[in-house]
């Protein structure tokens, strides 16, 4: 760790790194997503053709990754807001981080079937 940085590892720093990385990823996705949605102004066929790629197993895996990024960024964002505005926030930041991770794991487990189920059926039949 270079000297003079504010954070010294542990939950506080790594959650900040992950918040930054997920934020950038979501932004780049959104840019492409608005472009692909704009195809509804070209023709139904053009739009449906691009959306068909969203339904392939490999892209389904990417969608699962996108859900992971958004859920982490959203939950940790709420934690950051609590640290800033709740008087006891800074004292409980570590507990809140592990709460975020717990909720995140539960939600990600719940998302497996809805998000990846159709890919499973494509690959292994119903």
């Amino acid at each position, binding site marked *: 760790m270079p000297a003079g940085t504010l954070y010294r590892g542990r939950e506080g720093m790594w959650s900040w790194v992950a918040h930054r990385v997920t934020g950038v990823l979501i932004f780049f996705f959104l840019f492409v997503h608005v472009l692909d949605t704009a195809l509804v102004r070209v023709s*139904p066929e053009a739009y449906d053709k691009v959306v068909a790629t969203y339904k392939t197993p490999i892209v389904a895996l990417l969608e699962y990754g996108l859900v992971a990024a958004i859920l982490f960024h959203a939950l940790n964002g709420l934690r950051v807001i609590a640290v800033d505005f709740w008087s006891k926030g800074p004292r409980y930041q570590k507990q809140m981080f592990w709460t975020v991770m717990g909720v995140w794991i539960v939600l990600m487990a719940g998302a497996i079937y809805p*998000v990846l189920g159709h890919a499973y059926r494509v690959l292994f039949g119903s």
Partner: protein
Amino acid sequence: MSTTETPASGVGPVEGAPVYTVDTPAPLIEAPRKRTKKSPRSTRGNFELAAWLFMRLSGIVLVVLVIGHLLIQLVLDGGVSKVGFAFVAGRWASPFWQVWDLLMLWLAMLHGANGLRTIINDYAERPASRLWLKALLYTATVFTILLGTLVIFTFDPNIR
């Protein structure tokens, strides 16, 4: 020559309060960055404060908008398999979902663009790289917001 003046010290006058009082026998020293009548009027606005606040307020609203959007697109009613032109036509027939998507577009783009501005400020050190990266960021942001807004307002279910 007798002198009744207080001895010279490095303590300057403090606005609105005497330097010594019974309660403060030690000289009262003004907080270093306190703004007083004498400090020049700030030439900077409160842009960074507004941006900081916006990140938090938009974040709270985006939790509902984006997670609701993902639930509709990826989880409910067959997940991503049902998405297609006909599905979009059905959704944008309702002003409620038009406003939802419009708000989500503007808030997410402005929130994300402001976040990227912070990141550029953190990592790009040469003035020229900062300028060009921000020019690229702002161009892409304005373009995306305008395109997305136009698509929502001009959507035509009977295009073909």
